[in-house]
């Protein structure tokens, strides 16, 4: 593996190396220059030092840094390709190092499919500039003009084959300066590494059982912590009779701070047993009841909301007798459902806290920990190590505070805390439940004349630092509780709950109304796609309903309402791939549907066609096959991109057919995989993905691009198969059976 391998030994070194020789705090670097700095490309704008991104060793090899983190999406491999390309070094001579508050640029959260755009752009420009500096140094050494030199594999050459290696040129290299952003990166036509299907850096270690995850980190002397969470949100710990627990084998300490309760033991299985005993020994004053799940959408709609109007278009008024349809759709709370429960390892040493974490944002997490622990941020170091796939904010940040609170109680000992399965299911912040209302009318030619869209949703980000206050779970339960500030929406054009709420279709009259509901009866935060999954489900389902009203074919109807040629191209391509036939009638043995979206209306274009079959007896839907066409602009790693598009379709298929968080008034009832079933191997569809590579268009994120088109294609296929429109997710066997009778 090229990425830094964490060994049991290096953990100790890292602890010792907490005092770092330089600061990469952007505020500090900015403070050195006067006035407002000129804008720089990508994340260079907020992390302006070249040294923050690139270092060249005495051997001429490069180490590059990113503030973005690997989540299994292959981002480090893609960034590694970009850096090697611009440095003119082979991949084997470039190492990439990711998110560490002591060493890497601060790029906030790794979220929203923006890593290629922000970090990739920064690395591209920083590496191009450093390569230029090396060439300049070589030119001076050789007394030739820099323009006469070429570079291949870290060797700078003159026309008559005189050469200076990077190792020879590096002596005079000074990277402790601001990037200028003025050295042009390579033209796409010169690319040798970018655009190639490059094997992922992390896979060999993962398939051979090497240390690859934060869950695997261990140092001699590591002890194990577990937490005891209340029966439901907002409960307070009245008393805990821990006398017997303290005497259990291996128990080092029971830690209580207000209603935060945890235990530290020598061995992991001892901590797990002690947690069970401690849970039985605790008496809680229960927090407020949860809403009735049967009326959850009506309940959410009844809460106060902040309303905003988006995408307003006013054309000629539709005819009074225009054919009009109206429909409402819903999406339940969804769990991230990480296969591995969240984990962190924390050590409190000399009043400093060191935390290994799989948080998506080590800098925001550090600042939340500083508040919760009342420590200066400079005395906290958060280092990213991969966890199990998170797909948004799972328990990663929360367990980091749990580990830190326990570590503070047993100084000098590395404390490893992994949440148990029920901790993760019952306490992670879910993807929000949503309601969508639509109304549209047709003109005389059968085109949409007027489009009205309303959506109701909680926030889609309660990540660290996304609000005022403190945004890590345990802080709310401390003796001196620290609460998160009021939820804030994410502004358009990316949007939060209203992500993809504005259709890409061209309608003469249009109004989109977003009801943002700040109060959260059930804990929510960012789940992959935020609101886009539900909005694309509703918009694309309703497009099919309107197409049926217009007696038009769904593919032709969409194309007739689109101007964007790239949007049309993915729809046309997927129609060809799937051998789409206009007006084909469906049956229970085969229904077919299409869905389309341009993610965030800013990023990757994806169109999906799904073929489904329905078991008449049970109502169970199975997706037999899915086809996808995707356009992400310039492709960095085609294999990685395919993996993301296909993975998104399969995850969306699972969300769509099986998933909803179960709860009742007494609390969350989805606490394991039996009470939160997901798609299993025999039900997985075949997926065919084709990519459109647009080398003149900027690279766009694709990690969340296929979920919306996939749910829409499946929902439309179910309607095609059954003749019934199902508007409430999930499209599980019970609902489908009720519809087909």
């Amino acid at each position: 593996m090229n990425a830094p391998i964490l060994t049991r030994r290096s953990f100790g070194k890292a602890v010792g190396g907490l005092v770092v020789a330089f600061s990469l705090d952007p505020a500090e670097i900015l403070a050195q220059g006067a006035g407002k700095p000129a804008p720089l490309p990508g994340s260079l704008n907020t992390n302006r030092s070249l040294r923050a991104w690139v270092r060249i060793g005495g051997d001429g090899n490069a180490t590059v840094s990113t503030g973005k983190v690997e989540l299994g999406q292959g981002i480090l491999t893609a960034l590694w390709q970009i850096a090697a390309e611009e440095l003119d070094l082979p991949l084997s001579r470039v190492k990439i190092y990711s998110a560490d508050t002591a060493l890497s640029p601060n790029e906030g959260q790794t979220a929203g499919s923006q890593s290629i755009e922000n970090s990739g752009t920064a690395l591209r420009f920083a590496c191009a500039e450093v390569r230029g500096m090396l060439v300049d140094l070589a030119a001076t050494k050789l007394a030739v003009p820099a323009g006469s030199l070429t570079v291949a594999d870290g060797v700078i050459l003159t026309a008559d084959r005189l050469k200076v290696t990077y190792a020879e040129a590096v002596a005079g290299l000074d990277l402790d300066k601001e990037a200028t952003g003025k050295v042009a990166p390579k033209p796409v036509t010169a690319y040798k590494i970018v655009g190639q299907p490059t094997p992922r850096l992390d896979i060999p270690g993962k398939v051979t059982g090497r240390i690859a995850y934060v869950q695997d980190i261990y140092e001699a002397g590591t002890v194990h912590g577990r937490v005891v969470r209340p029966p439901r949100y907002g409960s307070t710990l009245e008393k805990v009779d821990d006398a017997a627990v303290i005497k259990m084998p291996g128990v080092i300490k029971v830690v209580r701070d207000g209603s935060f309760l945890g235990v530290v033991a020598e061995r992991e299985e001892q901590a797990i047993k002690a947690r069970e005993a401690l849970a039985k020994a605790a008496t809680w004053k229960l927090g407020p009841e949860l809403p009735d799940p049967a009326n959850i959408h009506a309940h959410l709609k009844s809460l106060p909301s902040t309303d905003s109007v988006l995408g307003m278009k006013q054309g000629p008024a539709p005819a009074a007798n225009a054919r009009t349809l109206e429909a409402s759709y819903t999406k339940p709370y969804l769990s991230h459902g990480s296969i591995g429960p969240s984990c962190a390892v924390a050590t409190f040493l000399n009043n400093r806290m060191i935390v290994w974490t799989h948080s998506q944002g080590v800098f925001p997490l550090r600042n939340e920990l500083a508040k919760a622990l009342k420590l200066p941020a400079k005395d906290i170091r958060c280092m990213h190590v991969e966890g199990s796939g998170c797909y948004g904010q799972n328990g990663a940040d929360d367990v980091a505070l749990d580990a830190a609170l326990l570590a503070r109680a047993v100084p000098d000992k590395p404390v490893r805390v992994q949440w148990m399965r029920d901790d993760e299911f019952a306490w992670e912040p879910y993807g929000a439940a949503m309601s969508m209302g639509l109304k549209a009318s047709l003109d005389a030619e059968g085109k949409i004349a007027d489009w009205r869209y309303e959506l109701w949703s909680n926030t889609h980000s309660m990540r660290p630092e996304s609000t005022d206050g403190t945004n890590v779970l345990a802080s709310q339960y401390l003796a001196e509780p620290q609460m998160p500030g009021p939820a804030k929406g994410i502004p358009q054009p990316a949007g939060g709950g209203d992500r993809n709420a504005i259709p890409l279709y061209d309608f003469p009259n249009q109004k989109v109304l977003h009801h943002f509901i700040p109060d959260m009866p059930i804990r929510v935060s960012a789940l992959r796609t935020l609101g886009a999954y539900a909005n694309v489900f509703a918009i694309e389902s309703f497009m099919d309903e309107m197409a049926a009203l217009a007696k038009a074919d769904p593919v032709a109807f969409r194309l007739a309402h689109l101007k964007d040629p790239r949007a049309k191209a993915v729809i046309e391509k997927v129609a060809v791939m799937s051998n789409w036939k206009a007006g084909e009638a469906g049956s229970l043995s085969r229904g077919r549907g299409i869905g389309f979206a341009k993610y965030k209306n800013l990023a990757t274009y994806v169109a999906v066609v799904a073929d489904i079959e329905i078991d008449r007896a049970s109502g169970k839907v199975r997706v037999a096959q899915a086809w996808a066409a995707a356009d992400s602009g310039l492709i960095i790693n085609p294999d990685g991109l395919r993996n993301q598009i296909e993975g998104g379709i399969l995850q969306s298929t699972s969300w769509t057919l099986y998933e909803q968080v179960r709860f009742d008034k007494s609390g969350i009832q989805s606490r394991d995989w039996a009470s939160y079933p997901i798609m299993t191997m025999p039900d997985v569809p075949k997926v065919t993905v084709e990519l459109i590579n647009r080398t003149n268009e900027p690279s766009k994120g694709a990690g969340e691009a296929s979920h919306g088109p996939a749910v829409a294609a499946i929902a439309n296929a179910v309607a095609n198969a059954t003749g019934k429109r199902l508007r409430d997710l999930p499209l599980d066997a019970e609902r489908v059976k009720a519809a087909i009778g």
Partner: protein
Amino acid sequence: MATSLKVNGTTHSTPAEPDTPLLYVLRNDLFLVGAKFGCGLAQCGACTVLVDGRATRSCVTPIGSLGNAEITTIEGLGTLDKPHPLQQAFIDEQAAQCGYCINGMIMKAKELLDQKPQPTEPEVRQALAGHLCRCGTHNRIVAAILRAGKQIGDKKPLGKQTGRL
């Protein structure tokens, strides 16, 4: 009282109590971290190891129940330098996103290929029905197992059940 375990051909001793699930002993005493904690309930398969050739959920298997059984973990199949054909096939197919479930997929596939060196695609899917993947890497996982099966099967007579490679 110490308990002895035979893991990847070597006998180890652990101070853990006999009711301790094998998973924690492998990870924390033997530093074999390939098997993962996923649920502790035998629902997801991330912790799978082979016990006398049978895919077994180590998160619910007490060490006291193992006696002289031969335990094989993913580390016992192959290494970075010398991967087992299954491990190599997962690399060749790039069959991982987060990869947290992959230990279980490989170990269950090992049991399958030992019994049936060239399974059909539906047989692979059925064998993995109890192994959860959340990233949507299922199809690549199946492709990797079929690839490994083909490679292993080509090297030995069909139908011969060797129990190990």
